[in-house]
């Protein structure tokens, strides 16, 4: 008998919960998120991709949701791990579009995975605002996939501006003509080195040392020793995270005496500053931010508070900006109709943590930071293609 009562109570409770449910439930937007949680790119995604999604969804829901024509929509994130495998990215995005019926899908992580998913985003009409894809074929790609947007910037500009900074320092008489250039023999490093070589030569620099090393080389001391022997005025490495750290370590050991020390990817990571402390002062790399801007400082503080880690000074801000763009476009368009939202992204400018962003006719963001430098406690932008707040570069002065 007692049991019966309990059962009845349970049924009653369940029923009332079910009945009360719809009345209490708010409108919800299903947002799909795909990215590596395992595989070779999981480390990078754990710094740039996932924390921003966590931060953004937390914030949106804390402030009551996204405003769509007067109705507030909470966001529900559906996450899938693509294992850094393009086949899995395709499956996951297809699953989100067809099985989960996601209202919007966030762009995946990295160039390869974004491009693999582009046909699926295109087919189902989802806007794909990428923040970690870089390509030199923006025109061709946006013709084929009109919903594909690029925020991160182009390699040719990143390289061109780095050479430009060196040229300025040379003309000011701060450094000489001798450049040691090395690169990691993998995708991005290869492309940057290939486009840098002719630009350096055109600018009248002498490449006194040039080499490449395989990705994952554990001991970079021979590279650094040879570079030092060539007595360069500037050291430039088109490097990936592990070797950015490895080369800097060796430079400290060898006390490499150069006016410019440049390492590419991961120089902008907060972990770089934590690892090298005062020795990081004056090191240049890809990326940079306007560290004085209030919106970035505020973003960095919130990032720290919600995710327990600091954002990096390159793609993190852009990743968060891509989420802001999507949110502002949904609110601005006043609808969750995806075609209207995509058109709104093309036609309008957006106020983000990285400043105002407006896409050009190729769906490309023309204004981004290209070269940054550790000055004090921040990796500050020293060159950009049209961002405000650049600081003057300083010379690298020893390793202590």
């Amino acid at each position, binding site marked *: 008998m007692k049991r019966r009562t309990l059962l009845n109570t349970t049924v009653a409770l369940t029923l009332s919960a079910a009945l009360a449910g719809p009345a209490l439930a708010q409108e919800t937007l299903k947002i799909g998120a795909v990215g590596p949680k395992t595989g070779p790119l999981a480390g990078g995604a754990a710094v740039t991709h996932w924390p921003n999604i966590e931060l953004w969804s937390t914030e949106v829901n804390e402030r009551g949701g996204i405003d769509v024509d007067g109705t507030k929509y909470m966001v529900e994130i559906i996450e*899938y791990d693509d294992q850094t*495998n*393009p086949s899995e990215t395709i499956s996951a995005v*297809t699953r989100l579009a*067809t099985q989960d019926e996601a209202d919007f899908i966030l762009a995946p992580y990295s160039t390869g995975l974004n*491009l693999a998913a582009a*046909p699926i985003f295109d*087919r189902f009409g989802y806007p794909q605002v990428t923040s970690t894809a870089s390509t030199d074929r923006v025109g061709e790609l946006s013709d084929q996939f009109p919903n594909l947007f690029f925020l991160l910037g182009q390699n040719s500009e990143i390289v061109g501006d780095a050479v430009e900074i060196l040229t300025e320092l040379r003309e000011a008489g701060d450094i000489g003509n001798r450049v040691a250039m090395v*690169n990691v023999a993998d995708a991005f490093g290869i492309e940057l080195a*290939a486009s840098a070589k002719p630009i350096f030569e055109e600018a009248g620099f002498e490449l006194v040392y040039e080499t490449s090393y395989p990705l994952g080389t554990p001991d970079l001391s021979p590279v650094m020793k040879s570079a030092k022997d060539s007595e360069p005025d500037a050291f430039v490495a088109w490097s990936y995270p592990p070797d950015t750290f490895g080369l800097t370590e060796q430079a400290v050991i060898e006390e490499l005496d150069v006016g410019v020390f440049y390492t590419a990817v991961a120089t902008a990571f907060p972990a770089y500053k934590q690892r090298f402390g005062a020795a990081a002062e004056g090191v240049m790399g890809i990326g940079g931010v306007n560290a004085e801007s209030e919106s970035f400082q505020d973003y960095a503080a919130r990032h720290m508070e919600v995710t327990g880690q600091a954002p990096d000074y390159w793609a993190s801000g852009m990743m968060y900006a891509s989420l802001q763009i999507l949110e502002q476009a949904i609110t601005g368009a006043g609808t969750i109709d995806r075609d209207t939202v995509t058109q709104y992204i093309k036609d309008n400018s957006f106020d983000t943590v990285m400043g105002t962003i407006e896409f050009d006719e190729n769906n490309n963001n023309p204004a981004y930071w290209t070269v940054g430098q550790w000055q004090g406690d921040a990796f500050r932008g020293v060159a950009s293609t049209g961002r405000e707040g650049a600081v003057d570069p300083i010379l690298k002065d020893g390793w202590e």
Partner: protein
Amino acid sequence: MIRADGRTLALVALVLAVAACLPLTGSAYWLSLGISIAMYTVLTTSWALFSGPTHYISLATAAFFGVGSYTTGIGIEYLPYWALPPIAGVLGAVMAALVGLATLRLSGVYFVIFTLGLAELVRQVIIWFQNISGQKGIYVLTKITEAQIFWQLLGLAALVYAAGWAIGRSRLGFALRIIGDDEEVARHSGINTARAKVALFMVSGAAAAVVGAVLAPRFVYIEPSTAFTPMLSFQVVIMALLGGTGRLWGPLVGVIPFTFLWEAISASFPNQTTLLLGVSFLVIVYLLPRGFVGLIEGTRRRMRAREAFA
């Protein structure tokens, strides 16, 4: 016998015809699963054609697959698409012949290690070449749809089955079965074991290369790290063993449940895919040591035995 063959053939044709209708349902989700199944069916069946009878475990699938992807990636600039999968097939076969001649005289574990290294070797060669030429990823921008890719894979599966069927009834197939049972005996009966093994390895290499070529347009962007992922080689072996390699249709009964299991795990436990996959493997190994083929045939035998007693 001929009548039984005719019936099997009709059944296979019917199954393929039904499968070919999948894109007509209009569901992108089922089509994407269908592509996975068709892709792994070709890869595992062609793998089992060689590894089944000879018991040589090849981990070279990723190498051939990557070579195929790069054939389309590079060739698409110069040639019409339809010419590329056949070229990839020829390249795959040539590569398999070279590798086979060099290694198939080795046996057992040496062969496994060499094939595992092969994908890495080809990948490093491509990276080295890129480092010299300064070119990074390769773009394959085409108008080829998922449905067209699916049909191509299905056609390829039909070819692989036809080849497997023909080989099984030929002197070559007979020779391979003897090699698998005892290579020494085979050699003493006058079989040129090296040539037989190389011939079969070429079939399996060519099929994997064509799959890579057909799938390249789906990925849009080809880079060495994803084209030569070693995971692919392992998945093929695991699926083939789950099905069972003793029968031509064995790998297929491994691929289908594995694809659905993988999809269920990826969809429901996105943070624990690798863990759950490992657990599934353990369960499979303990409960199905001879694969689904063993399970099905064991059940059939038991039923027949029961009938006999009754």
